[in-house]
């Protein structure tokens, strides 16, 4: 369908009006001379039909035979367009150069999109890509997507899946990172488990290792909870050797968490005056060309703007970005919170703190935080009693059996 229309436009066609004489004979003569007529319909004082430009020049003898008159109503297609613009050579040259320039631009990478990264920042990935000579303005043919994806996987072990592909002038890098954080100590390396906070042990389930504390014991940060070194004894109960394993246990302690928050009642509030200024700039190949940006026009101002990269089609990005900057003036006024407002703010902050703790698995049992509002400030302070999981892996000290024997 589309190719048919393109062919029609390339060859050019005319709509003619046929008047007088013998119409039917004219139509039959056209068919016999292999002249294709389409959209043939009766019109005012005769008939109208479309035919190719080439065929139009064959009509004269046929029209003479049938005593019909032919009049051109409409001309459509490339031959007529070229004929109309035959004197505009510079325009045609400009069109040609423009097409060539766009083709030339399409041979480079003008945008790099990175998706799926959480722990590895975009900047780190971009720096790595730059080290691999891949960046803005890189020749597309020089980018080996498969090799680049393999290199990324090798260089960043945390990436479990990498996809690199070129879409138009956009290099799309999609990554997937490991969901679980890597353990500092692999499970097969022997270690001890020590407390990482002060408190009283309320619950303890040991999966591997020798527990050295029990429920109700008071522990401090750094105290040994579970030993990774387990003695092997003979029938007499004497230690003959030690077996080593990675100590593993769920240890919950009751602990006190200090909380303190203080903020002044007087605070600054920006009030927009309604005066604003618009500026515009274009970023071409890393160079900015501004047009009346108006920065610093007001004493106190906010500048809002978003740079957008121009593109021709969905993935055909150009090395040109543009942004509209809005500068808004504001005046800072000093206001004071009332007692109720200050209490509300302090409570909101405390609730947020508690929610963050609960998200981390800490169960809050007692809340002894008191909020005091004085003449110039608001202070929330106190302790929270909570049950939280404790225990971190630490290097174990191996006991030398021969030395033990000597000492005895």
């Amino acid at each position, binding site marked *: 369908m589309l190719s048919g229309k393109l062919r029609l436009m390339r060859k050019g066609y005319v709509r003619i009006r046929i008047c007088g004489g013998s119409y039917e004979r004219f*139509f039959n003569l056209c068919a*016999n001379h292999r002249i294709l007529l389409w959209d043939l*319909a009766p019109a005012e004082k005769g008939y109208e*039909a479309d035919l190719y430009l080439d065929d139009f020049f064959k009509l004269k003898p046929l029209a003479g035979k049938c005593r019909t008159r032919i009049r051109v109503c409409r001309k459509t297609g490339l031959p007529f367009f070229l004929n109309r613009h035959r004197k505009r050579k510079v325009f045609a040259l400009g069109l040609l150069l423009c097409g060539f320039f766009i083709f030339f631009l399409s041979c480079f990478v003008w945008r790099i999109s990175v998706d799926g990264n959480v722990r590895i920042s975009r900047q780190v990935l971009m720096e790595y890509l730059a080290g691999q000579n891949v960046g803005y303005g890189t020749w597309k043919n020089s980018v080996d997507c498969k090799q680049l994806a393999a290199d990324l996987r090798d260089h960043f072990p945390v990436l479990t899946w990498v996809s690199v592909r070129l879409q138009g002038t956009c290099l799309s890098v999609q990554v997937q990172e490991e969901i679980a954080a890597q353990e500092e100590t692999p499970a097969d390396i022997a270690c001890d488990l020590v407390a990482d906070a002060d408190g009283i042990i309320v619950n303890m389930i040991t999966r591997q290792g020798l527990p050295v504390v029990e429920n109700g014991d008071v522990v401090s940060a750094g105290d040994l909870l579970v030993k990774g070194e387990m003695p092997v004894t003979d029938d007499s109960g004497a230690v003959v050797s030690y077996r080593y394993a990675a100590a593993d246990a769920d240890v919950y302690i009751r602990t006190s968490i200090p909380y303190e928050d203080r903020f002044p009642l007087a605070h600054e509030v920006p009030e927009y005056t309604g005066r604003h200024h618009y500026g515009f700039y274009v970023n071409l190949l890393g160079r900015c060309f501004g047009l009346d940006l108006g920065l610093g026009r007001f004493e106190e101002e906010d500048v809002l703007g978003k740079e957008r990269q121009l593109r021709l089609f969905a993935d055909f990005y150009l090395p040109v970005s543009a942004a509209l900057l809005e500068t808004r003036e504001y005046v800072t006024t000093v206001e004071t919170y009332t007692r109720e407002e200050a209490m509300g703010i302090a409570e909101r902050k405390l609730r947020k703190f508690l929610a963050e703790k609960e998200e981390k698995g800490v169960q809050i049992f007692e809340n002894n935080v008191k909020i005091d509002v004085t003449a110039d400030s608001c202070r929330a302070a106190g302790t929270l009693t909570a049950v939280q999981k404790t225990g971190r892996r630490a290097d174990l000290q191996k006991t030398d059996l021969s030395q033990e024997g000597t000492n005895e």
Partner: protein
Amino acid sequence: MKRPVYQRVASAMEIPADLSERAALVELTGQSALRVENYLGILAYTSDRLLLQCKNCRLEITGQHLVIDSYAREELKLRGRIEHIHYF
């Protein structure tokens, strides 16, 4: 009635009539489009009537707003509201 030899041979060889006798081949799509092959020419055409000369008969198509979509030696395409097709 005894049929000519070429008709009997074509029938025995199961050659379709549009090939062996150049019988008019009419393809009608709904009430709005029609395609005709094996005709000799147009005898009359207005916006509500098209009369075609075929080898063995004449074909009259009547309707409203009849427009010839394409007209060539091999086939004719017609669109519009087709009401009757009449052979005589």
